[in-house]
């Protein structure tokens, strides 16, 4: 990734191409953007950084007309404008490539580019246009290939060509390298540089600091909806950016012990055998991209191992391999036969909303059960779990959907712990829960540890991981390693900044 950074580029003193000033956007009681400002000039690559949930994506959705700001001003070429929809943004030459492509897989590249056009459709003309843009921009693509047959990198080129076909001069790219192999990422970054050098404007939402510094002219860092730093890329280091992104530890956790975050490296004598042992385990996602590279991990009974990682670093696969919900492509996995698993998307993966609480409890082990369902026994077990875990429900026979999110999650954890598994894998366990429910979930996880369960917990909220874990394992780019030290050290390790 040795690209010439945009040195000596005069960031013009004329009005910026796009300026977002003091943008505020809240969802319910959550402030997603709290007076965030950002501007980008023609010929510039401007990187937008921030932790998960810092507001990057929301800010760019505002810039693309997908979200309406509650307050704040948007200027385009110096003129105040309102973007009611992406259509308005596209009229101004703004294009956005989302992290998850909006392509019709069963259609060809040309057909995808033609989608949303006006007037008569002449596919051969569109194909010709695709070839012209692809040639001029240096984005090789077969206009007649079906999108479903293309690798991810090529699909991304289709998205960019789609934007360029609408005369896009301002391109917003949301974590474009997250899905790419290193070689493809290098090529894309080089293309971004050329596009900007040709007078285009690029906003690059990114996680990887070295990529950002290699290609961007300027960098803006968001934290909790605020703009905390805007600087020339040549004037900042990875350390400065990491500190700006992470800030100082903030007491988000409702837990009383959250203050002594690093004091959790408990001097617990762990001489009992390992519960979970992964040795050189690799795994691929459904696209065949390697997500986990030769990962090794040992988890002992009675400890909570915290997984710290940024989105898409490979923790998704790691957790599912430990939980026995996914097969590795290579390596040796030694895990107990029954592993409790609390997935992040409980409505999709953990509960059946239309079924009763009893039925949801009965789900555990349903795959191997024979004969008749002992409903009375299961109902009594459910009622016992409801009172044991303080799940508020009027009866065990009400549908799962009538419970609040926190009570649903408590019941999922209760179910997964009911069979006293030797290992429990937990993914974003308090997402969407209020403070009280969060505390209760944390208490349940600590109680499981005290009972001798090996607990593996991942949360996209680093502070939550730190408050729960006895030791921290950082996953970056598919590599797994234990990191000791302060929040800062771990935060930098997540962003692959050498400390």
């Amino acid at each position, binding site marked *: 990734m040795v690209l010439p950074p945009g040195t000596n580029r005069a960031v013009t003193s004329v009005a910026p191409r796009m300026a977002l000033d003091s943008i505020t*956007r809240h*969802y319910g009681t*959550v402030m*997603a953007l709290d007076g965030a400002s950002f501007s980008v000039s023609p010929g510039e690559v401007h990187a937008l950084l921030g932790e998960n*949930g810092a507001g*990057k*994506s*929301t800010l760019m*959705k505002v810039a693309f007309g*997908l979200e309406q700001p509650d307050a704040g001003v948007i200027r385009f070429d110096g003129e105040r404008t309102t973007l009611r929809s*992406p259509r308005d943004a596209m009229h101004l030459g703004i294009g956005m490539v*989302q*992290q*998850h*492509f*909006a*392509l019709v897989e069963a259609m060809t590249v040309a057909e995808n580019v033609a*989608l*949303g056009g006006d007037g008569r459709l002449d596919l051969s003309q569109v194909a010709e246009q695709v070839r012209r843009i692809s040639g001029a921009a240096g984005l090789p693509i077969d206009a007649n290939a079906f999108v479903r047959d293309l690798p991810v990198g090529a699909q991304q080129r289709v998205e960019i060509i789609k934007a360029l076909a609408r005369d896009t001069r301002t391109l917003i790219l*949301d974590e474009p390298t997250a899905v790419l192999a290193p070689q493809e990422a290098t090529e894309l970054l080089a293309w971004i540089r050329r596009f900007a050098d040709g007078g285009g404007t690029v906003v690059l939402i990114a996680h990887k600091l070295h990529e950002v510094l290699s290609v961007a002219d300027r960098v803006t860092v968001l934290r909790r909806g605020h703009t905390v730093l805007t600087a020339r890329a040549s004037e900042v280091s990875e350390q400065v950016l990491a500190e700006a992104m992470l800030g100082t530890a903030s007491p988000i956790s409702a837990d009383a012990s959250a203050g002594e975050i690093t004091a959790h490296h408990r001097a617990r004598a762990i001489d009992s055998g390992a519960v979970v042992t992964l040795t050189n385990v690799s795994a691929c*996602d*459904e696209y065949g991209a390697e997500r986990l590279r030769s990962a090794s991990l040992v988890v002992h009974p009675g400890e909570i191992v915290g997984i710290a990682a940024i*989105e*898409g670093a490979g923790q*998704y696969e790691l957790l599912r391999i430990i939980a026995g*919900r996914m097969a590795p492509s290579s390596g040796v996995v030694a895990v107990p036969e029954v592993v409790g*698993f609390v*997935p*992040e*998307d*409980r*409505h*999709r*993966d*953990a*509960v*059946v*909303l*239309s*079924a009763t609480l009893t*039925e949801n409890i009965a*789900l*555990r*082990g*349903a*795959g*191997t*059960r*024979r*004969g*008749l*369902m002992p*409903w009375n026994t299961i109902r009594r077990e459910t009622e016992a779990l409801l009172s044991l875990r303080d799940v508020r429900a009027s009866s065990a026979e009400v*549908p799962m*959907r009538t419970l609040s*999110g926190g009570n649903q999650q408590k019941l*999922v954890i209760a*179910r997964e712990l009911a069979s006293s598994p030797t290992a429990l894998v937990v993914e974003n366990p308090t*997402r*969407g829960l209020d403070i009280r429910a969060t505390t209760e979930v944390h208490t349940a996880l600590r109680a499981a540890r005290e009972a001798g369960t090996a607990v593996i917990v991942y949360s996209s909220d680093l502070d939550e991981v730190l408050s729960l874990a006895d030791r921290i394992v950082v996953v970056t780019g598919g590599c797994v390693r234990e990191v000791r030290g302060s929040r800062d050290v771990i935060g930098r390790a997540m962003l692959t900044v050498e400390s």
Partner: protein
Amino acid sequence: MTTRVLRWIAEPILAGLLSLAMLALLLAVSGYPVADSLGALWGGAFGSWSVLASGTLVRATPLLFAGLAVALAFRAGILNIGAEGQLMMGATAATAMAMALPATSGLAGVALALTAGVVAGGLWAAIAGFLKQRFGVLEVISTIMLNVVAVNVTGLLVRGPLQEPTHIFPQSEMLDVALRLPKLVPGTRLHAGVALAVICALALAWFLRATAAGFRLRMTGANARAASSAGGIDVARVSLLAFIASGALAGLGGAVEVTGVTYALYENLSPGYGFTAIAVALLARLNPVSAIGSALVFGALEAGASAMQRDAQVPAGMVEVVEACVILVLVASEWLGGRGGRARSFFWGGPPNTASAESSESLNRTRPTEPTSTYTNRSIITRDDTRSSRRVSS
């Protein structure tokens, strides 16, 4: 429990009254004498013990078998629109079996013929199940197309190997009297298959409620991902078995129709039982016991329709219009409740999985900063949160 029983009884009655009211309106608008026509309808459906036994109940029997087939499939999250074809294959196989058996085999022969129908219906549905799992063919499409294939296979056979000895009519020889289902009430058309259908309904209700396999089927239908992830259920296997069981029920219906009512096989054996069955299952909210009532409602409407045509000169097609209206009203209202999420959303054009739709709602609320919608040229595609949408797209 009592409220549930009340609902089982109340809903078909309510639906019956609703359809009568609609029919009255339709008759009045079309200028037919409302009271006379409805009187003829009632007389044809419930006018006497003999019309009830020979008409309504006999007519309701194949509707119940096929309705149970549809209900079972929908509960498993499978949109089996192919009960018609599975029923025809069941009828064909039962006829072929009966033809091959000596008349002396008696009741054992009838049992063998019914078994042949079960097997044929199951295999016919298994084709759609295999196509779905091996090639991802949507069962809605494949089962509809297999209906056409089944009717034509029957047509071919009744003009070839199964044709009656004189080779004049495109139908099979009449079954030997010994190979017909016994009558429940002598002198009527009420045959033992009616009781068999009711037994099947009760057995299916028990299976879904009380057995581990039935529980797996329901959970797979309600949320396949959770069934697999949290329950360790082999959802592909459950789904294939549900296809086969659904087809087997419809096939049994066809076999019962041949051995109990028509005694011969011909192409038009079923006046669309397999399609009306979808209405039967939906009116019963996919509950097998309620299906007894809803099959009765539709059986009565159809039996009464012919009487109305005969006695009051009202086209029988009028009743079909009413049947369709009842279904529309039912589907439009939220009577279907939380059952068979996929079937429900299919009719409402909702997301493929209600569970994931709800989860995306909640994620929108709770994780505002992750992208939840993606702009595609002119359409906004709402997705799960970033993480899950990629995983879910497989």
